[in-house]
């Protein structure tokens, strides 16, 4: 394999990396190279054996491995080069990339463009500061998922799940079906963190108690988890005295959010957005570093895999163009600013010169709202929820309606029908 003439290098081969690489190849990039840390393509999809993937992308209800298989086949057919069990250790501002594996040793290449598709990581106990002892039996939901679905171990017999993210709820169902007693799901917010369908089909279907506005205040046990203390929280998410109760369990799973994986991005000098969590990108999903693009959960954590792949395709397509024609001529830059009830917006900047796919997350749940982007987009929504990102496609001709030469556009969610 020659590393001297890579057109587009894609880091990671989950639902983002595979989609980006395929798109880049289809858009004419000749030498597309995927660098994957694991021993197979697909990233996290392999451990997501449940269904609910691809309903939008393929119009079919697929499981994670089935979703992965479709992309893997295409990668093979298109002749995209793949390096497995290969860890990218460094990327520089001028796209010098260093990777290492046990066959080739250190690999040095300078691709014409790079797509960051490393996905995200789970938040762990260290980031929550739960008091108590340090016994065995505390896992992130994703680690438990890997143990149960890939490696063939059941993490415990009596489980409490902190956080009602999708992976936590899906594990509640999976463990119940494997004969584990799931004693409770504890959520600090007044509503579940994941999708409604998962609340119904994973918790209600299996009669798993859901404690809203509760949190875990103490973990008990010396060698192994023996119990957790839970307590109700007030409006400021502080535990309320006198509401504590103990739940006996041997395992605590954490499903308390995901954070984009930023290590390589930072190394390359890519600017990060504290609101979305990952790199600041424009509508091409290009970062502030010319020729370095990003797509999927590395940019901001999506709710649906379909959107991960779609967004990465944007990055892949423009990365292909960059590799063939060089840097884009940038005529303008408009910054998107979050207004009322907006948590995050991707892309954070646009040129106004090409079509844009926006992903917008609100801060609080509200019914009967209007979402506005400057004076060019205004639409009513029956409900806006933090757990369900809003996708807005704007065509270039709609952007042409922008009056004057604005340097910023406010995105806001206002009450109204």
């Amino acid at each position, binding site marked *: 394999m020659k590393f001297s003439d890579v057109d587009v290098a894609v880091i990671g081969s989950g639902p983002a990396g595979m989609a980006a690489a395929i798109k880049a190849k289809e858009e004419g990039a000749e030498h597309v190279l995927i660098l994957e840390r694991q021993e197979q393509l697909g990233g996290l999809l392999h451990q997501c054996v449940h269904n609910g993937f691809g309903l939008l992308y393929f119009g079919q209800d697929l499981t994670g491995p*089935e979703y992965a298989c479709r992309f893997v086949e295409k990668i093979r057919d298109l002749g995209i080069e793949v390096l497995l069990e290969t860890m990218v250790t460094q990327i520089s501002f001028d796209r010098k990339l260093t990777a290492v594996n046990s066959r080739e040793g250190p690999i040095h290449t300078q691709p014409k463009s790079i797509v960051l598709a490393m996905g995200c990581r789970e938040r762990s106990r260290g980031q929550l500061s739960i008091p108590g002892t340090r016994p065995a039996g505390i896992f992130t939901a994703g680690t438990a998922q890997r143990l149960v679905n890939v490696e*063939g171990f059941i993490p415990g017999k009596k489980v409490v799940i902190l956080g009602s993210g999708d992976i936590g709820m899906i594990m509640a169902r999976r463990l119940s079906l494997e004969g584990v007693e799931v004693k409770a799901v504890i959520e600090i917010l007044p509503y579940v963190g994941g999708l409604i*369908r998962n609340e119904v*089909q994973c918790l209600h279907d299996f009669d798993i108690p859901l404690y809203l506005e509760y949190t875990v205040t103490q973990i008990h046990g010396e060698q192994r988890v023996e119990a957790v203390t839970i307590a109700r929280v007030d409006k400021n998410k502080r535990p309320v005295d006198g509401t504590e109760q103990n739940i006996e369990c041997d395992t605590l799973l954490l499903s308390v959010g995901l954070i984009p994986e930023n290590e390589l991005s930072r190394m390359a000098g890519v600017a990060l957005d504290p609101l979305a969590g990952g790199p600041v990108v424009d509508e091409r999903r290009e970062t502030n570093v010319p020729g370095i693009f990003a797509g999927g959960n590395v940019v901001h954590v999506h709710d649906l895999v379909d959107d991960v792949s779609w967004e990465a395709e944007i990055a892949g397509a423009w990365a292909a163009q960059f590799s063939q024609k060089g840097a884009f001529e940038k005529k303008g830059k408009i910054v998107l600013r979050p207004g009322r009830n907006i948590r995050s917006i991707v892309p954070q900047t646009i040129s106004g010169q090409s079509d844009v796919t926006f992903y917008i997350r609100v801060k609080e749940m509200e*019914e009967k709202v209007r979402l506005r982007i400057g004076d060019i987009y205004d639409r009513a929504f*029956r409900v806006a929820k933090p757990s369900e990102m809003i996708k807005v496609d704007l065509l270039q001709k709609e952007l042409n309606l922008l009056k004057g030469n604005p340097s910023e556009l406010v995105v806001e969610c206002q009450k109204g029908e």
Partner: protein
Amino acid sequence: MIEEKIICIGCPLGCETTLKIDDQGEVVKITGYKCKEGRQYVLEEHRSPVRVLTATVLTQNSARPLFPVRTSRPLLKTQLREAAKVLTKVKVKPPIRVGQIILPNLMNTGIDVIATDDLLN
């Protein structure tokens, strides 16, 4: 007259609906839904709630200890636990291609259990 509460999963709104059911088991009134599709979903969820079952089965002569499978069509919700138990007794050997039938006619339902991945070694 009895009442059944069903949450609609059709959209992020998650409407909490209430069905009034008479002594003959007929739905006489549905309240709480906000669209036609929601009303239809709630009725079907009341009459016959079904779910696709996804699981893993054990392997033999393979580098992987487990292999993912699912039912080819949704099963009755009430059959999920029993079906999961049946699958604990299934063992598969490579080679298997995605979509291949692993267990035909699960519990005489006419529904097959199929592979959701390739198992080449």
